[in-house]
């Protein structure tokens, strides 16, 4: 089981408490699709992804980015059992969506970059360490049910 200190819990809950989902969600997902274009393979039904501008203004991508970001809320509320919390979502990503689990890390890196850009110097190295630890646990849980 993953151990969280009081400080780490506070850091994670406070980042999410002040998170602008409508801004960060779309930015993180569109950045992922632009920086790692092969991830577009999962979004064939989302409309125009022909260039960076199209991706950045695509309303389906924006909506999905918000949805994915809210998906992290469950982990924040169940930090002591993220693995069990995401068991169902892991099965979904494996059996139904057929997402290569390596992609979870790519999206989580883009989310980290977007949050760092928003928070600036208040995204201290210690906060970065905690944030990346949190995302690593989420990424691991999402890949857990693949077989």
């Amino acid at each position, binding site marked *: 089981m993953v151990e969280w200190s009081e400080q780490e819990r506070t850091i994670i809950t406070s980042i999410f408490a002040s998170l602008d989902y409508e801004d960060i969600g779309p930015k993180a997902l569109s950045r992922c699709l632009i920086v790692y274009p092969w991830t577009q393979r999962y979004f064939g039904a989302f409309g125009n992804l022909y260039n960076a501008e199209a991706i950045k203004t695509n309303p389906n991508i924006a909506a999905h980015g918000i949805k994915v970001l809210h998906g992290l809320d469950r982990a924040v509320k169940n930090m002591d059992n993220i693995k069990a919390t995401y068991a169902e979502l892991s099965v979904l990503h494996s059996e139904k969506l057929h997402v290569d689990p390596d992609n979870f890390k790519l999206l989580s890196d883009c989310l980290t970059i977007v949050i*760092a*850009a928003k928070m600036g110097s208040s995204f201290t190295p210690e906060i970065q360490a905690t944030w*990346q630890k949190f995302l690593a646990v989420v990424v691991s849980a999402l890949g857990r049910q693949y077989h």
Partner: protein
Amino acid sequence: MSLSGKDKAVVRAFWDKVGPKASDLGAEALGRMLTVYPQTKTYFSHWADVSADSAQVKKHGATIMAAVGEAVGKDDLVAAVSKLSELHAFKLRVDPANFRILAHNIILSMAMYFPADFTPEVHVSVDKFLQNLAWALSERYR
């Protein structure tokens, strides 16, 4: 994933903006790497203080970033960093996996310092450049 003409132009243009802050960026990136990825501290056991705000870390971060800046705009990266590659391969013996880790922290620092300029389009070209640079840096390893 080799650099296109467009990638090189984008990186050059971004470096024109970012270059003056290179020392700060380097210090920031190295300090973060040592804090967030503690295993990287193993290469600096000869330093008394490996915290993000130590003078040694800041100086070394600046040195690294200056070398990165030198490589911007060079068409033959392998030739450009050949001596540095030998240094990392035979003397420092840094596992090349760590180049990726440092690149992530360089990118993160760029996004922090230049949130408006570090657009996704700039991000992808810089990511490719750093990957190519890492590859060139590991050229002499074996």
